[in-house]
């Protein structure tokens, strides 16, 4: 009789691979316990594929339901979930989807699916209390440059080589246009959502670099440097003010870890 840990190891491998041969001999139930085990094996594959298809309906609309289901099934076999909250499953599915043979002809699939993930995350976010300009300015310009800022949890950034925000808005409108031209142009998108609301803003290169650098946990000075590399006329002070006025900054800490609030 195998120890429980070994039995569960065999069972887990059977679930993920879909091959229950190593487990069936320990079971009883029905005419053939192996066929009863198949109920669990099928559930693993179908429930996770269903979850991914539910999470990426716009991508399925773009590439076709059959291709999406096939890719989702393959992803579930190769990348089993590592958390019990299935809502968090599939963060790296866009990259996997882009590698699917039938999606390879659509170079915008990955960024479109990344945008869809961002939209889903933004739509369930809840705003944190924003930091005011008075609170931020109180620490002084020198300390502010070394500070790191936290942005609203419902703010996400996606960069694409195609105008995928227009394609997403077409999908979200629920109205199929007679003709849609997907323009190949560098597109920098800020997705913001809170308590079920959602909006897209297209950013210029400097503002996008400034905000994504801050979102990555770098300092205000580093964010300004990243933006100035792309746009010589970039004004970090105005950019920071715009960010605060939009109530996107929720917290901050100076270089000595002193809270800005």
């Amino acid at each position, binding site marked *: *009789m195998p*120890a*429980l*840990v070994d*039995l*569960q*190891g065999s*069972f*887990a491998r059977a*679930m*993920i691979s879909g091959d229950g041969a190593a487990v069936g001999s*320990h*079971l*009883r*139930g*029905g*005419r*053939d*316990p192996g*066929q*009863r*085990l*198949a*109920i*669990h094996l099928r*559930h*693993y594959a179908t*429930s*996770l594929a269903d*979850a991914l298809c539910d999470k990426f309906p716009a991508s399925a609309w773009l590439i076709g339901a059959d291709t999406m289901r096939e890719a989702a099934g393959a992803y579930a076999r190769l990348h*089993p*979930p*590592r*958390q*019990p*909250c*299935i*809502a*968090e499953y599939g963060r790296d599915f866009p990259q996997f989807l882009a590698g699917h043979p039938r999606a390879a002809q659509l170079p915008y699939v990955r960024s479109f699916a990344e945008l869809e993930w961002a939209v889903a995350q933004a*739509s*369930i*976010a*809840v705003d944190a209390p924003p930091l005011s300009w008075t609170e931020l300015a109180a620490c002084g310009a020198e300390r502010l440059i070394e500070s790191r800022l936290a942005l609203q*949890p419902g703010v996400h950034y996606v960069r694409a080589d195609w105008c995928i925000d227009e394609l997403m808005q077409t999908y979200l409108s629920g109205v199929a246009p007679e003709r849609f031209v997907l323009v190949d142009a560098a597109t920098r998108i800020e997705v913001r959502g809170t*308590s*079920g609301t959602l909006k897209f803003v297209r950013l210029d290169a400097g503002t996008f670099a400034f905000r994504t650098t801050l979102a990555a946990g770098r300092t205000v000075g580093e964010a300004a440097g990243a933006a100035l590399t792309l746009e010589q006329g970039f004004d970090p002070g105005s950019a920071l003010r715009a960010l605060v006025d939009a109530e996107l900054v929720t917290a901050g800490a100076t270089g000595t870890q002193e809270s800005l609030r």
Partner: protein
Amino acid sequence: MSREYAVNALPAGVGLRLPHLAEVAAGASSAAWLEAHPENFLANPHARELLLRVRHHHPVALHTVGVSVGTATGLDRAHLARLRTLVDELDPFLVSGHLAWSTYDGVYLNDLLPIPYDDDAMRIVATNVHEVQDLLRRCYVVENPASYVAFSTSTRAETDFLAELASRTGCKLLCDVSNAYLSAANLGYDAYEYINGLPADAVAELHLGGFTREADDAGAPVLIDTHSAAIDEVVWELYAHALRRFGPQPTLIEWDNALPTFAQLLSEAHHADFVAHATFEGAPRARAG
């Protein structure tokens, strides 16, 4: 018994699923109480905000699907910490989960999988239940599983395993009456004897859910715990028996797939109340309006 029921027992509640959340949070529900799966709310701040609003108007219980007390590779403490935060925020009147495993070495298998009922499993499950109770700082309520297969290496009946688990850990038991019927039909034992075999003083909640009749790949009939249909008439009969055995207990209607309107769920809950009333007051059994 009837006086105790009239004063102390909650009417039947319903499982709160995300498609009904906005409606219920808007205050439009007459549900006596609600049970939520925390895993649907831990990664969804907006839904969590609405659930906290619901809590202002309704008693709430939490029914976990990802705690995995049957796992031999250790509980997911990060998940438990998140669960603890939600429990602290909501103060549910009951927190429950399944006698099953769903995680192995960090991988989540998205299912409630069976365990053999032997000494090794008892040691592991009891340790895990102790840890859950210590972390949540409250009694955990463990549900009997819906089974399609059992382990030929089991040395105890499921009811004996659950009774010993309750005795060792102080946990309470959730008797899912539909699971009792389904497992008995699938594995060839008597559902009424199963109910009789559970320790009545440990049972703290009852569940009722719909199942579907299918055939397995070998063509043998099998009942699947789909939670996608109304409660079967045979389960209502078994529910009446469970009420006589366990006394009045908080009873929940579970419906997860092919979800009907919230009003239909309330109708099922009202029928559960009718069955309870008929069982304790001796009124004739007939389907409530």
